[in-house]
């Protein structure tokens, strides 16, 4: 009963409650600061020895203690770019269809099914990639691409299966649900008057969607795409299992490659020297900074569109 609580005890209770909550809230920035500090300490040795040349070096030889991360950075960027080229049109098509065209009863179920894709663990994508996707690509898709688009350097050379393109395709499947669900949210936030005005001027339904609705949500959609990019850059397991893990920069997408996340996954347990550990931590440090920048940009863009709405654009 509230009446029985003495006034002093009440204040003590409030004080204790607020203190506990504050400790929990302080823990969040403290953890992140601690993470940055530990990564810095861990990579200090490599930063001092290689400096920024680490980023432009192409040779990775743990035995000779030579570490250059350029092929890794190249692989991370290329696989993420392939993923976006495939995933962006698909997820935008689905998002526009679900908000503007689909029958009402089908919208929620389709959105739910696609969001289920986001719940599948990365390692399961990798497993499926090794035993289903790679054989399909090696026997059917890659030869077809080489026959039709083989005049481009991108689609030349021997076909192994495990390759940059395979990693890009699995990444596309994995980032699609994120881009789709955030784009859908920002499209839903576009005022109905935008659509009505365009339709009232005689636009077809597609023209109304493409010229009145999509431009209105432009920066939010860009935010969704950059959020997907952030996911693709940091994705580890599925890429490690499909990309072929070779330290080289090849023009052909059929050739194996390597990414920053994958090299950490593969070499961290095998590293024997301090400088090897330090170089791998340096890679993690670099990857961390790239993803922080990418995500900050995405949040800013999404926030600009959905501010003022009660249930902001956090989405995922």
């Amino acid at each position, binding site marked *: 009963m509230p009446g029985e609580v003495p006034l002093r005890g009440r204040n003590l209770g409030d004080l204790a409650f607020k203190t506990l909550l504050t400790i929990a809230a302080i823990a969040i920035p403290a*953890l992140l600061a601690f993470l940055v500090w530990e990564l810095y300490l861990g990579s200090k040795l490599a930063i001092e020895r290689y400096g920024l040349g680490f980023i432009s070096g192409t040779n990775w030889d743990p035995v000779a203690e030579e570490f250059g991360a350029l092929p890794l950075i190249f692989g991370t960027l290329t696989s993420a770019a392939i993923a976006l080229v495939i995933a962006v049109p698909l997820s935008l098509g*689905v998002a526009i269809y679900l908000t503007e065209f689909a029958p009402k009863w089908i919208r929620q179920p389709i959105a739910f099914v696609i969001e289920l894709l986001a719940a*599948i663990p990365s390692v399961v994508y990798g*497993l499926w990639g*090794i035993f289903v996707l790679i054989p399909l690509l090696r026997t059917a898709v890659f030869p077809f691409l080489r026959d039709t688009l083989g005049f481009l350097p991108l689609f030349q050379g021997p076909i192994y299966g495990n390759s940059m393109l395979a990693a890009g395709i699995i990444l596309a499947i994995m980032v699609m649900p994120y881009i789709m669900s955030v784009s859908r949210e920002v499209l839903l936030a576009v005022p109905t008057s935008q659509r009505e005005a365009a339709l009232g001027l005689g636009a077809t339904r*597609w023209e109304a969607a493409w010229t009145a609705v999509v431009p209105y949500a432009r920066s939010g959609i860009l935010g969704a795409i950059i959020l997907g990019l952030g996911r693709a850059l940091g*994705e580890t397991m599925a890429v490690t*299992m499909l990309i072929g893990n070779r330290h080289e920069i090849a023009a052909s997408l059929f050739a194996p490659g390597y990414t920053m996340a994958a090299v950490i996954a593969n070499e961290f347990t095998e590293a024997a020297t301090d400088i090897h550990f330090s170089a791998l931590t340096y890679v993690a440090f670099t990857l*961390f900074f790239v993803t922080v920048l990418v995500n900050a940009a995405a949040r800013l863009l999404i926030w600009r569109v959905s501010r003022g709405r009660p249930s902001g654009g956090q989405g995922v």
Partner: protein
Amino acid sequence: MNRLGWRRWKSRVMVGLMMVAVVVAVAPLVMILATLVARGAGSLNLAFFTQIPVPAGETGGGVAHAIVGTLLIVGTAALLGLPIGIGAGIYCAEYPTARLAVVARFVADVMNGTPSIVVGVFAWTLIVDVQKHFSGLAGSAALAMLMVPMVLRTTEEMVRLVPHSLREAALALGYPRWRTSLSVVVRTCLPGIVTGSLLAIARIAGETAPLLFTALGSQFMSRDLDQPMAALPLTVFTYATGPYDDWHRIAWATALVLILVVLVLSLLARLATRQRFGSRG
């Protein structure tokens, strides 16, 4: 007239293309689930759930060690991560304009986008490198770090949905602030917080990368969090990339079990919220 006809035709073609996009987007999910069941279901028997692996090359054995390992590692991660995530989430909702709330919210977004492998490296430098041996506890710490920002954001959103009138009524009746928060506000949105927590647990249960060099994995039954420990996702990775056909069979079956765990947790999460609306009629 002709031009209008062309515009109508274009509109129809674009809608058709978008429907194709929907089919292409849904296809991988169907294919993945179908292959998991087709290749994994046949290997699910009692031995699979109760035995530990047999030496490479022999057939049979199970993944009981990985099931126990996942339960222990994820359970410990939840014990570490949930209080911090929920507490910070309530803080952000109760004092939304406080500088600390703004900072915590922003940092949680940054952490949400941090690759899980980077968090794994952090846990390695923090625990494994200091102790000089791999341990399940280091894996739990990494997973806890991953779930904190997710739990924070869902908790905050749920607490904010509680109408102000409820809080005011409790305060007017003479409840102190902390009891208003706990037995009125948090009590009201508890199903939402449970849902958010279960979804976060479902997500970390499938994480592999942060466990690679923390929990490491093991071929034996281990209940000691201070020792290397097996986990379902690690088992899928090891067996999928191994050279034996029988290993691949086990990888499919383990992946099926892992997916079932994740889907059951997600379903439970939805039930927790539904019950609330059901009981309110």
